[in-house]
């Protein structure tokens, strides 16, 4: 049984726009996935990975391909206030070079649109593009498959060995239109000992009822360092899909913090591959659902594929009203990944009797000398703590805010860059 696919989506898949702009190696894959998805249809609730997702929201509006549009945005309002940064702007999912700080990119680094990279860095691009074998995974990820069929452009970043950007890279996605579907595709390559601090932010000052469907691939070579913070604050009628893959080589470290506040329906998939000894990944996240019928779904999957790898997963959520959230934390330790250390935690506060959270840890361990632990909780506001604060004269609502901030505090502490930390705190508060 397949869910009914809305006509606009069928059309988008049959057109397979990506196949027209990308060379054969990539175009073949695009056609493959378009055909596959058309034939399979969208996942239903019988699919474990999509059990709680009501994809009928896709059929609510007829969506068309996004355009950059004319933008009279005052982009300075969105800049990090507390430090210099290199701002890269996407409007309605399309890269806007005229709004971006291209002049601040140091000469040794490559930061450009994917289309430009196709012309100017074809070798690099093809060398790092996910191959057919990896693409098979996309059968479980229909929106990544949709992206593969429809993506036209995105960002390409290449930091050569030892390259470090002196200030954070600020990737800002702004939606100003309505009823569009955007499928940006990004590829980030960090050479040996390269270092990147990245903040990706989704905002919608005027856009609404759109679909944002991003696929991002990170490749970290030996001893590379990535600090990646994402803020999803889409319009409350928007649909947000994100599929992020990280591949980590020897002694490379990645730290991810995710803050999800916006959208009507959001699905965030993160797939981490710890491919070589010494690689480490920290993933943390905070989601806060504030509206009836809001849905936020995180599927985090970490694969320990080599010995002496470490991972830490810590997500926290606060749910108001009649909202629903899903957290699925998957940990896979392969047979050879001895001495793996992996922690997983998910804690939730339900502030309304109608809010729903579905949390599920999935641990699949094939090695026998590992340390793995997990924990999940669902609770309500601590009434003793609330009374304690109020009994000192703190107003009831202020006391609640204090407790909620306290609940999520350790997630905010994960953001290492002080300027990004402040920025996120201001936006989330």
């Amino acid at each position: 049984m397949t869910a009914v696919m809305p006509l606009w989506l069928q059309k988008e898949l049959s057109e397979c726009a990506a196949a027209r702009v990308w060379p054969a190696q990539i175009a073949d894959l695009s056609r493959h996935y378009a055909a596959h998805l058309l034939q399979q249809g969208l996942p239903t609730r019988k699919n474990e990975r999509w059990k709680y997702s009501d994809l009928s929201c896709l059929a609510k509006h007829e969506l068309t391909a996004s355009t950059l549009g004319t933008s009279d945005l005052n982009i300075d309002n969105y800049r990090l206030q507390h430090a210099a940064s290199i701002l890269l702007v996407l409007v309605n999912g399309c890269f806007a070079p005229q709004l971006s700080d291209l002049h601040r990119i140091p000469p040794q680094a490559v930061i450009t649109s994917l289309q430009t990279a196709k012309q100017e860095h074809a070798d690099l691009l093809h060398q790092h593009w996910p191959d057919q074998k990896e693409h098979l995974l996309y059968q479980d990820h229909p929106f990544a498959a949709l992206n593969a069929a429809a993506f036209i452009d995105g960002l390409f970043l290449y930091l050569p060995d030892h390259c470090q950007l002196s200030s954070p890279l600020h990737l800002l996605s702004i939606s100003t239109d309505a009823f569009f579907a955007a499928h940006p595709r990004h590829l980030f390559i960090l050479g040996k000992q390269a270092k990147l601090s990245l903040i990706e932010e989704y905002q919608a000052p005027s856009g609404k009822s759109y679909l944002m469907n991003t696929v991002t691939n990170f490749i970290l070579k030996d001893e590379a360092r990535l600090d990646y913070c994402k803020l999803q604050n889409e319009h409350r009628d928007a649909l947000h899909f994100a599929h992020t893959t990280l591949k980590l080589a020897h002694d490379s470290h990645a730290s991810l913090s995710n803050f999800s506040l916006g959208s009507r329906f959001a699905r965030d998939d993160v797939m981490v591959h710890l491919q070589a000894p010494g690689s480490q990944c920290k993933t943390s996240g905070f989601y806060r659902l504030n509206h009836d019928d809001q849905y936020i779904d995180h599927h985090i999957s970490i694969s320990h594929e080599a010995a002496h790898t470490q991972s830490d997963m810590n997500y926290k959520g606060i749910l108001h009203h009649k909202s629903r959230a899903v957290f699925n934390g998957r940990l896979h330790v392969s047979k050879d990944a001895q001495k793996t250390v992996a922690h997983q935690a998910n804690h939730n506060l339900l502030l309304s009797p109608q809010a729903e959270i579905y949390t599920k840890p999935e641990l699949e361990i094939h090695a026998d000398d590992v340390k793995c632990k997990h924990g999940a909780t669902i609770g309500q506001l601590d009434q003793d703590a609330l009374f304690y604060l109020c009994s000192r004269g703190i107003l009831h609502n202020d006391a609640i805010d204090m407790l909620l901030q306290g609940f999520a505090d350790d997630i905010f502490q994960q953001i290492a860059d002080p300027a990004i930390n402040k920025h996120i705190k201001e936006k989330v508060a």
Partner: protein
Amino acid sequence: MLEIENLHVKIQDEKQGTKSILRGVNLTIKPGEVHAIMGPNGSGKSTLANVLAGREDYQVTAGSVFWQQHDLLSLSPEDRAARGVFLAFQYPTEIPGVNNMYFLRTALNSLRKRQQLPPLDAADFLVLVKNKMKTVGLNESFLHRALNEGFSGGEKKRNEVLQMLMLEPELLILDETDSGLDIDALQMVGQSVNSLRNSTRSILVVTHYQRLLDYIRPDAVHVMSRGQIIKSGDEQLARELESKGYSWIENEIAI
């Protein structure tokens, strides 16, 4: 002035259903007075302290509490605090993620706002709080920790006294603040409470032991048993209790 009249309080217990805890408590504390309540475990002392502070788990079924002519029971905990009520808790709650200094400053400025006083800025606050921390014997590092989280029993009590000194309440209720404290800490609690003693404040000290009352000399001592005050007297009564035990009075009343 605090006036408690015929106070009856029940609690909803999951196992035992409704349980009567206070059964007609009468107590009046005039401005400037220190009263002590002693009594065996389960007699209702802590319940009385918590009802005065406004904890919601309790059901007041009869009686009244007036504080400075206001019906205390009709007020929320934060409104009671704004009228000067302060309870030093027997078991202070640990609140992870809430910074101790931020909490104290928010509480103080929230009370100042209600009194139409300007908020204390960060620098003034810091001078004040560091000074008081010396008094209660807490290292400054405690300012940067989460509220009560991982504090030892003694550190929690010191933190309660710190809050008391910072907020300068008009009605001060100490719920077994002395239990689990060493001699030095006990002396610190005594000195801190005495430093607040003046002609307008009312102070209620709930304790098991006469020891604390050597430092805070009470104007009156009451013995509570089975939800009622069964005997009142001066500080001599506390000494008698210490030597003879509670059963002495309970037997006497039974006769």
